[in-house]
């Protein structure tokens, strides 16, 4: 009903969001550098944010915006903790490779 208000069709936003999300997923699965994996995770967060904001704008419902802000704060917190862990493991092993960090394997 209100999709006409957008200069770009909603479908494109959602498609972009999906593409970004799957690029993030592929990055987490295939890359071994923890920094790149973190960036991929951020990409997934942002893909989700884009979907939230697009729908919120399209349906004129502000709940999506609020969720986007929440996701941003969570992403910030997550980035802070994850980078700290990366720094600590780097100090311990002198390597930046998540496959080397498996002291808790069965």
């Amino acid at each position, binding site marked *: 009903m209100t999709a006409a208000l957008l200069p770009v069709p909603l479908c494109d936003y959602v498609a972009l969001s999906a593409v970004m999300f799957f690029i993030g997923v592929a990055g987490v*699965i*295939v890359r071994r550098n923890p920094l790149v*994996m973190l960036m991929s995770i951020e990409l997934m967060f942002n893909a989700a944010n884009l979907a939230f904001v697009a729908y919120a704008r399209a349906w004129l419902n502000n709940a999506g915006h609020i969720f986007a802000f929440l996701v941003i704060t969570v992403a910030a917190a997550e980035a802070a903790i994850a980078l700290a862990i990366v720094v600590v493991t780097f100090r311990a092993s002198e390597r930046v490779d998540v496959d080397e960090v498996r002291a808790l394997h069965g």
Partner: protein
Amino acid sequence: MILIALLVPLAGAVLCWALGPWLRAAAGWLATAAVAASFGLILATGSGSQALFSWMPGFDFGLTLDRLSLLWALVITGVGFLIHLYSIGYMHGDRAFARFFAYMNFFIFAMLLLVLSDNWIGLLVGWGLVGLASYFLIGFWFERPSAVAAARKAFVINVVGDVGMMFAIFLIVANVHSIRFADTFSAVATLGAPVVFAICFGLFVGAAAKSAQVPLHAWLPDAMEGPTPVSALIHAATMVTAGVYLVARCAPLWDQSASAQMLVGTVGAVTAIGGAILGASQWDIKRILAYSTMSQIGYMIMGVGVGAYAGGIAHFFTHAFFKAQLFLASGIIIHALNNEQDVRLMGGLTKRMPLAFWGILTGVLAISGIPGFSGFFSKDQVIAGALAHGHPWMYAVGIATAGITAYYMFRLLFVTFLGEYRGNVDPAALGIARSTGSAQARELAAPHKPHHQAPSWIMGLPVAVLIVPTVFSGWLLFGSSVAPSLWTRFFAVQFAPSGTAPASVPEWVTTLVTFAVVLAGIGVATWRYATRSARANAVARLRNETLRMPKVLANAYYVDALIDVVFVRGAQILGAIFSRVVDPYVIDGAVRESAASAQALGTAMRALQSGFVRAYAFVLVLGVGCFLAYYYFVGAR
């Protein structure tokens, strides 16, 4: 009144137990007074019954004092009183004087409970408690390993009997739905013959264990490890005759089952002659008396088994006196000779202990069945009863046993009292092999050190008093078919007259034959031990007899060895099987196997925890993919 008579000895036991350290010597008098009071109360009550309480329908508890239980209760408390009195002297100076009397009073209570109960459960409780009292008193000198072993043996064999009785009572309750004797006996005609036989069999297993009948007799000779008054009271006069009481009490059951009568009569006859033969081969004065007790109870069991109830319990009545008499008199000897029990080391005691001599002499005459003495009348009744109820071979066994009895009792008398005192003779010269060589070592091994401070009349009086019933109690049985004896008339209301075949042999012939056999037995004993040459060569002759004693008799027919092989080894083998197979492989096996399977599961699951973060992420994505695929293809419901 009946309840009070029952509870007075219990109160005495509790007081002696609790206040023993304060009462000291007074404990003996307290216990004796309790038994005397109980005797008086029973005598004053005479007859009657008393309902106590009802537990649930069919389970009514009460006490009864009919003629059968009256007789038993009077013997228990009467002879018990004399033996308590005697014990004050015998146990004087013992470390656990009060404990002894607590146990003795407890025994009197348990035995009264056994005979006064009017129901099966009360009977069974009394039955178990007398076994417990017997256990306490056999093992009274628990510093002595042999006493502890004997106590344990007695208890275990008695429990075998208790279990048999219990199953009989289960059968009764299941079929009659009441625990009272009266209900059981009135319902007995409606029970089938197999049920009656099964009940009788179970009851008789109990009776045989308690009364030391073959094959459950092995505990009685060992029970002589207890103090002599205990042997006199429990293992001669009262407790061991509980089996006779049980069969007499259950006369209506036995009357219904000829095979049960046959069983009991046979066991009694076998025990009578088997015990008598063993009695002739023993050297320990108390063991001779123990085997003689076993043999005499065999007579009683045979009597009540064949249906001659009045005769069987008459023998109980006279036996209680003369056997208590024999034990108490031999206790005087044992006491004076510092715990010497081997008759080979006695001899020549007539002058030294005239009272013991007269006590044992009257006892021997009574048990041998010399006319005029008590045993003559009662034994005759049993032997004649066996024939009258149609068991000629039991009759023959009874007569033969009477001869052997006369032989071994006169042997005891002669070896103990005639000739020279042999206490100073080297035991080896008499053929005695002792592990602990010196008399000093033996004395150290015996914890009971007789003290002679006790006034001698305390031990003498009961023996002197018992001479009277030992000699005269049989006269109650004197009568004929025309003028029935006091005894017959007294028990006529107790036992239903059973059909007795007219005796094919007149009673006076039986009496004469028995007496002739008895005289023959006395003759052999005289020839072997009392002639002038026998007395002169006593040491050499006793040595010869000891060395030539057949092994089978010296080992009591190897019954202990048989029990050892069959039950003890059997139990050990079973235990070995359980400890080597069942325990490690079945019980531990189950525990170990469940632990091992949990561990194996853990090992298998552990492989999934690779530690690769990316692998976890992939699994996560795969899971999400699965969800999405599910909702895409199946759709949300």
